[in-house]
Each structure stands twice: as C-alpha cells, then as structure tokens.
C-alpha cells in the first residue's frame, strides 16, 4: 500500500561483517531494501538469517560495514552519534520481542520515556502519552506498573511508546514472539489498524504465516535477500 513512488527509507548495498574468535562472519551480504511511506511490510527469515541485524541497521542502532542508509534523501548511517540519537528519537519507533519496559515505571511513564529525550515541551508529555495509550486501548491501565500488566498489555504499552513521538516508521522485531497466538493476533491487528491510519510499519519475524498477512515481504537467508513478494 505504498502511496509514494520514491522510497523514504532506503538501505543500499548493506554489508555487515562480524569477527567472532578470529573468523569473519558476514551477517548481511549486499542487501538493498526500500521502504515506502504508509506501507506495512515484513522482513522474514529464520534465526541467523540476518533479519535482526538488518532491522538494527535500518533503525540506526548499528552501523553497516559498508553501504548506506538513506532517510528522506539524506544519508544517515554515518552521522555523528548525537545526530543519530536525534534521528532515532524523532523518526523511528522500536517495538521489541521482549517489550523492554522499565519495571519500576508506570505504563504512562514508560510511554513518556522517548519524550524525555526529545524537544517536545514538558507540559505536553502527559497529554501525548495518554493519547497513545488510548490509541492502543490501555487508557484504564496507565497508572499500573509494567510488572502488573499482561504480556499483551505490555506490548501495547511498548507500541504506544513507539508511537508517542510520531515517528516516520515503526520497526517491530518479533513483536508477537513472546505472546500466545491469540494475543499475538490482536497485536498484529493493532499494527494493521495503525497502518490504515497511515503509519509505516516494518515487521521483522520468523513467522511466515504472519509475514504473509503484510502487504510486502522480503525473505532473507544467510544474509542475502532470497525473495521479494508483493501482494
């Protein structure tokens, strides 16, 4: 469902190499992908295929050994650390398999966390966080500590947190991996709803069935793209 002919996020000829115990491991081998505004796409592959590494590079958590990441026409992969942090804060929302919520903080405080590192004026924080919690259907749980929430609720909080800064793209790494299938489905439905509201979402998963529900799939194997599939 791309509403734009030019990709707004592009990974160009990405190579990522690691050295583990003296042997070179090529996690990504010349991978190029394009993400269009407003689409719901997935990167699918087995464990070790390089899909998480690709997501980390797209999300500017990791730097490629060679190749470029281009966001809105600018190369962002080689920016200075503090600019990269700013891009992560403004443009990218992460959703992780293991939620990564702060245990001692309430749902609302967890959702507000990205705002602390943004330039958004403080008096708007609570309002913005409440809006997003409302959007994921948790407005009645916002004062609960994260360890008082169920797995599905935790992931909803994490999604609200990813949305709070109104990023250009949501990168979700196995977002249903720690959930039972029914809860997983409801989380996926939340993603499709958000996508219909205009959010660009990239889902990283090993679950081919889930992947097939997205508009576009890219399959990775041993660090290479083996299949493009458009629906």
């Amino acid at each position: 469902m791309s509403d734009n002919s030019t990709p707004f996020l592009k990974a160009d000829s990405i190579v990522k190499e690691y050295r583990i115990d003296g042997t070179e491991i090529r996690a990504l081998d010349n991978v190029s992908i394009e993400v269009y505004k407003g689409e719901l796409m997935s990167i699918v592959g087995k464990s070790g295929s390089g899909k998480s590494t690709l997501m980390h590079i797209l999300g500017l958590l990791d730097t490629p050994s060679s190749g470029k990441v281009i966001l809105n026409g600018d190369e962002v992969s080689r920016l200075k650390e503090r600019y990269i942090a700013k891009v992560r804060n403004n443009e990218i929302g992460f959703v992780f398999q293991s939620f990564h919520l702060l245990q001692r903080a309430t749902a609302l405080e967890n959702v507000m966390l990205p705002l602390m590192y943004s330039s958004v004026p403080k008096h708007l924080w609570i309002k913005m966080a409440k809006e997003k919690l409302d959007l994921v259907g948790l407005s009645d749980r916002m004062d609960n500590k994260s360890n008082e929430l169920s797995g599905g609720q935790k992931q909803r909080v994490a999604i609200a947190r990813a949305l709070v800064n109104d990023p250009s793209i949501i990168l979700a790494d196995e977002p249903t991996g720690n959930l039972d299938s029914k809860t997983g489905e409801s989380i996926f439905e939340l993603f499709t709803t958000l996508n219909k509201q205009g959010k660009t979402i990239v889902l990283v998963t090993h679950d081919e069935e889930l992947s097939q529900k997205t508009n576009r799939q890219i399959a990775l194997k041993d660090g290479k793209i083996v299949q493009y599939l458009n629906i």
Partner: protein
Amino acid sequence: MKIIDISRTSIRSLNANRGRSVLTILGVVIGVFSVVTLVSIGRGMQNYIEDQFNALGSNLLFVAPGKADFGGDPSASQTRNKLEEKHVDLIKNSAGDMFVTVSPYVVAGANVKYKTKTYFANIQGIDSKDQKTYNYELQQGRFFTKAEQNTSAKIAIIGPLVVDELFGTRSPLDSRIKVNDETYLVIGTFKEKGSNFDDGVIVPYTTAKETFDIQYVSSIVAKVKNQEDVELATREIKIALLNDLKEDDFSVLSQTDILSTIQSILQILTIGIGSIAGISLLVGGIGIMNIMLVSVTERTREIGLRKALGATQFDIAYQFLIESVFLSIGGGFIGLILGWLGTFISAQFLRTEIPFWAILLAFGFSVFVGVVFGTYPALKAAKKDPVEALRYE
C-alpha cells in the same frame, strides 16, 4: 528541563535500591564525619594551648633544665636537672636591669586533702613577687609575703577548681589542708584564669622545695621589661648561666618559641589526622564506583532501550554520573551532620572548634569523589553498544 528529568530518573533508581544506596554512602559518611570531627578537635586543642599561654602573661622567658628539642623523654631533662636558686642570682647580677623579675619556679603534682576529701592538684611554688608575673587575681584573702617565703611558711593560695572540689560552697579561708601530708593554711583563693591553672595550689617556692624535698628548681622564670628586648635578654641569660653550667644543661625559651613550636606540631598533627580521615573518603569513593559499575551492568538493557529511544551518550553518562554525585553528596551531608554531632559530643570533654574550611573541604572533597569515581562507570554506560545492550540477559 531535560537535565531535571534525567536527575529525577537517577533519584528514583537510587530510591529503588535504598538499602544498597545507604551502604554505599557509608564510606563517604565515615570519611566526612572523621575529617570534621578530628579537625575540629585538633583545632580546639590549638586554641586551648594558645589560651594557656595568653593566661601566663607576655614577656616571659623560661629557663628549662636540659636541652629543649621537643624530642626524647621529657622527664630525662628533670632527672638531669642542674638548675638551682643560685642561677637566679647569677642572672640577676649580670643583667638584672633588663628584667622586672627573675625567680625560681617549682612544680609538682600532689594530693591535697581537706577533711575526707582529696583532690590531685598542681602545686606551684613561686616567688612572692610573681603574683603579677603570672597574672593571678585574688578572689579572697591575700597573697604570701617575702617574709613568709623566707621562712618557708606552710601557706597556700588555692585555685577555683580546688575550692570547688574540697570546699564546695564554703569559704576555704583559714582552713587547714594537707599537701603531701604536711599541713598548710589557706590564706587566699584566686580567680578563674581558664585552662589548667585553675587546679593549682600556689605556695612559696621555698615551701614547695621543703615539702617535696627538691634540691633543684623546675625552671627559672624571667619577666622582661620591654617586649623588644626579649631576644637580647635571652642572650644575656645564656651568657650569665654559661659561667656555671654547660650549654646542654639548660635552654632559654620565650613564650613565642614554645607557642610556635607547639602550634606547628599540632598543625602537622591536625593535617595528618585529617589526611588519614581523607583516605576513608577515597575508600568511600571506590565503594561508590564499585556499586555504580554493578548498577551499569544490571541496567545494561535499560541503557540499550534508552539509546534506542533517542538518548545520546551524554544523556546516559549524565544519568549515571548524577547518581554517583547524589550518593556522594548525600554521604557528605550525613557525614557533616554526624561530624557536627560528634564535635558537639566531644565538646563536653574537650575543647573543639569546627573551622569553616574543614566543612567546605570535607563536603567539597566528597562531591569531587562522586564526580571522579562516577565518571568511569558513567562513561562505560554511555559507550555501550545499543544492540549488544538490548540483547544482554
């Protein structure tokens, strides 16, 4: 704005590990406490000694037996004492016009008894002319006369502490007290002079020599007429005494000599104990660093998450640094309060004074320790790779 919010995060995480935070700051607490307490005791001691000397009056020169070098065994100089009354005359004859008085001084500690009560007092045998030399002011009665001195009369003028202990509220005048089992008549009392003069019993030096069966005098005290002649007078005394004594047999000390020597010893002592206490601050700092390193490791995933959400290295470093600074400031503050309490309690037995610089130093040093020992863990946190950090189990 952002800085305040990050600081609040730090306080919250310290609060969540309250027990650990308290144990961590103990080192700094003890360090600051000991610096403040020890320095104020040392400082109080310096003031005390200064006051002692001021109470003595100025322009005084002391001829002490032996070589005064403030080293070795002080009693050795008394056992080899060669100072006698004739040396007083020797000084008088050769340079008498420079001095108001030159007189012998005999001192001994002894039990003083009145009826059933006993008090260990400082028996000071002085010359009849020396009431002014030592600035003794009479409370009651009279001082002894030259005639009484010449006949070694058993009479005494007693200090306020001795009055309190032996007589309470009764008047001690014309009472008979026993000093070393000899009966003395109390003819007067003197006013409070402050410091340890107040437990004195003043008797004619001739009487003291008899009572304690001493051949020699404890020292010779000379009061110089003009302050500016103190140096010259010192030389004159030496010249006079060298006619009969060897150079090692005596030393001439002025008040300022003694005072400055003692002051410098105390100063070194104060700095010394202060520094030893400072080491415990250092150890406290290492404790903080240790616990901060543990905290950084424990919160690796949180660091990864914060970075993924847009925290810069500076934000992360700041968050952890502010935690260690809060720990050390908290420790410093508690240490100061305890130090103040400690000083207050010691003030019941000792003279103390908390110098302002000691407070600044102890507190400043504890903040410094927090920054120095917090920096390494904070940088370690800031440098963490976000991908690795998020994966950390």
